[in-house]
């Protein structure tokens, strides 16, 4: 019984070893076959060269792209444009960053490769912006414990994020971001001889998912338009509150507003982008307008803060935070594809 078991194991190992050795032989033979095929190609024996290359082109190895390169050249020489193109597409898929060399590559080969579009399939990068982004508070319902007018004003913020992009084809793609976004605004009002200045800083993580349409395909500089929904998660928020009159001034710095704010906000965004290609990725310059559909104020706790209501005569309004941003970033290309 035991010897039968051992025999089965030995047989199985022998079979695996045989298959592995066959595979190894196929790999090592390919280099030599391609050398012979190259010679045949140079001698004009195109069909013989192609017959020698074809098995190699099916074998996964580091020289597989060379097999397709040689096949492309051989089919070009045979004026078989369809097969030449198919082989060239496969070659580019295997070696998407191949740079044509006029010293070695024929004009026909160069033109064929130039006619094949290669796009980054997946990209990943970092985007940063400081200064010119503007939070645009939009009051949908005003609440005041006394009769006075509030004035809202925009303030600059900051954002830093990770960006991922996926291209479906030359024109269409998707983008997903994870952005740490500091949104600031200010509200001023006067009441009973006092002047109040309340600024708020809200730190969100924004998760926009965008559809992107790119113009000027495969040019070094490309414009794009984008649109999509986003969700924001509030990390923390606080107010800086100043009350003053002619005689005295009192300040409440870094006064937490987390409990008065909703954890989640939603909206949509539109934008314009400019990509400048570099060797391993692209630089991006992007402007976006985000419009919120969520009220940031927690309605249930509007009247809970007695200090704000009685000492500062303040109640939170229903506010939606729209946002205008300009960002610069760099995207690394992870892999490529040849669109159908």
């Amino acid at each position, binding site marked *: 019984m035991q010897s039968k078991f051992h025999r089965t194991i030995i047989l199985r190992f022998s079979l695996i070893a045989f298959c592995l050795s066959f595979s190894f032989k196929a790999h090592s033979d390919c280099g030599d076959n391609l050398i012979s095929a190259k010679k045949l190609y140079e001698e004009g024996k195109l069909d013989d060269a192609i017959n020698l290359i074809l098995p190699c082109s099916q074998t996964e190895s580091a020289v597989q792209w*060379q097999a397709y390169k040689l096949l492309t050249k051989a089919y070009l020489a045979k004026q078989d444009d369809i097969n030449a193109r198919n082989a060239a597409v496969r070659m580019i898929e295997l070696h998407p960053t191949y740079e044509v060399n006029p010293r070695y590559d024929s004009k026909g080969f160069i033109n064929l490769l130039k006619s094949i579009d290669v796009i980054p399939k*997946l990209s990943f990068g970092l985007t940063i912006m400081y200064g010119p982004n503007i939070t645009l508070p939009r009051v949908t319902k005003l609440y005041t414990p006394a009769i006075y007018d509030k004035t809202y004003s925009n303030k600059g913020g900051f954002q*830093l994020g990770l960006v991922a992009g996926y291209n479906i084809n030359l024109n269409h793609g998707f983008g997903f971001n994870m952005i740490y976004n500091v949104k600031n605004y200010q509200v001023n009002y006067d009441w009973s001889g006092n002047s109040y200045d309340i600024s708020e800083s809200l730190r969100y993580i924004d998760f926009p998912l965008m559809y992107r349409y790119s113009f000027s395909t495969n040019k070094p500089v490309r414009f794009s338009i984008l649109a999509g929904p986003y969700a924001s998660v509030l*990390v923390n928020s606080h107010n800086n509150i100043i009350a003053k009159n002619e005689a005295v001034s009192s300040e*409440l*710095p870094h*006064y937490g507003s987390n409990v008065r704010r909703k954890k989640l906000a939603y909206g949509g965004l539109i934008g314009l982008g400019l990509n400048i290609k570099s060797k391993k990725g692209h630089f991006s310059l992007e402007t976006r307008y985000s419009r919120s559909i969520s009220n940031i104020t927690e309605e249930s706790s509007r009247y809970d803060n007695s*200090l704000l209501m009685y000492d500062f005569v303040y109640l939170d309004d229903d506010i939606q935070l729209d946002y205008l941003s300009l960002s610069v970033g760099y995207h*690394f290309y*992870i892999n490529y594809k040849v669109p159908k």
Partner: protein
Amino acid sequence: MKYVLILLISFVGSLNVYAQSNCNNSLFEASKLYESGLVQMAIDTLEPCYTSQNIEKDERLDAARLLALCYLFFKNSEKVDNYALEMIQIEPNYQKHPFIDPKDLTAVLDQYRVEPALSVGFMAGVSGNQFRLLKNYSPANISSTYTARSGLTAGILGEYRLGKSSAIRLIASINSYGYVREMDNVAGTKKSYTENINSIGVPLFFRRYVTLKNWKLHMDVGGQYNYVISSFADMQSTSLFDGTTRQTSTSTSPYRNRSLYGGRLGFGMSKTAGTGQFDLNISYVRFISNFAVPEARYDNVDFLLATQYFDPDFSLNSIAINISYQFEAIHRIVKH
């Protein structure tokens, strides 16, 4: 004498031009000679130009390859090794997309492996905290519950490879985290104390990679230093009699230890992507430092009077999930 000098300068100049034009064609000539079987003549034509001329990268690669092939013919393994190494130095990605090489040259090239020596990148993630009470300083015996506030971390990283499967990794990140302490009944009020801490984290740790088929697993062991930039606290006091709430806020920065130290453990997986590497990592940091400054416990008088809250001695343990992307800044060539 003047004419002799002019003639001499012209002669030397023409020699230089001749030598240059010779070298311009040397690769082409040497290729022809090699294909005709005149291998020694190919070496004699190409080698002086290879060592003396500033030629372009792709031409230099072709020249090194041709010289390696020539010496392979003479079975001069030392020279073949030298030129194979030159090929990889010129084009570190050569083995990924090689030319059509004889298997003997491929075997020599396969002796070398290009690996990242120094990688740089960026990371981001979310974290949670575990509040660790070291000593309570409440004026009365009050039961408290502690809840972690989810935090954020983002930063830059550098990784220095010690070998094929081990590395030293240094991160500089901005971290935002916090906790909530809830006290059910303090003299007729329910209190909720929320503290948010912003710090710069500098983890330095040893990483071990284990290669699977297309993925690598990694394990981390090391330490972490945190520098507290700022910290703020809000106390919500809700009366148990009439339900009114009063909020008091303060900066807790003067009462916090600026420098915090801890040990770090981590694990995760890595995947090569493009010219870099993606990581998904889970880390646990156990800080050994007391976050509170004991000597300053009673210094925040206004806040103490308004809230009757005394800082405990405490520490926070952090659990974070990070993603990172790193790309090769400097590579090295290793011979097996």
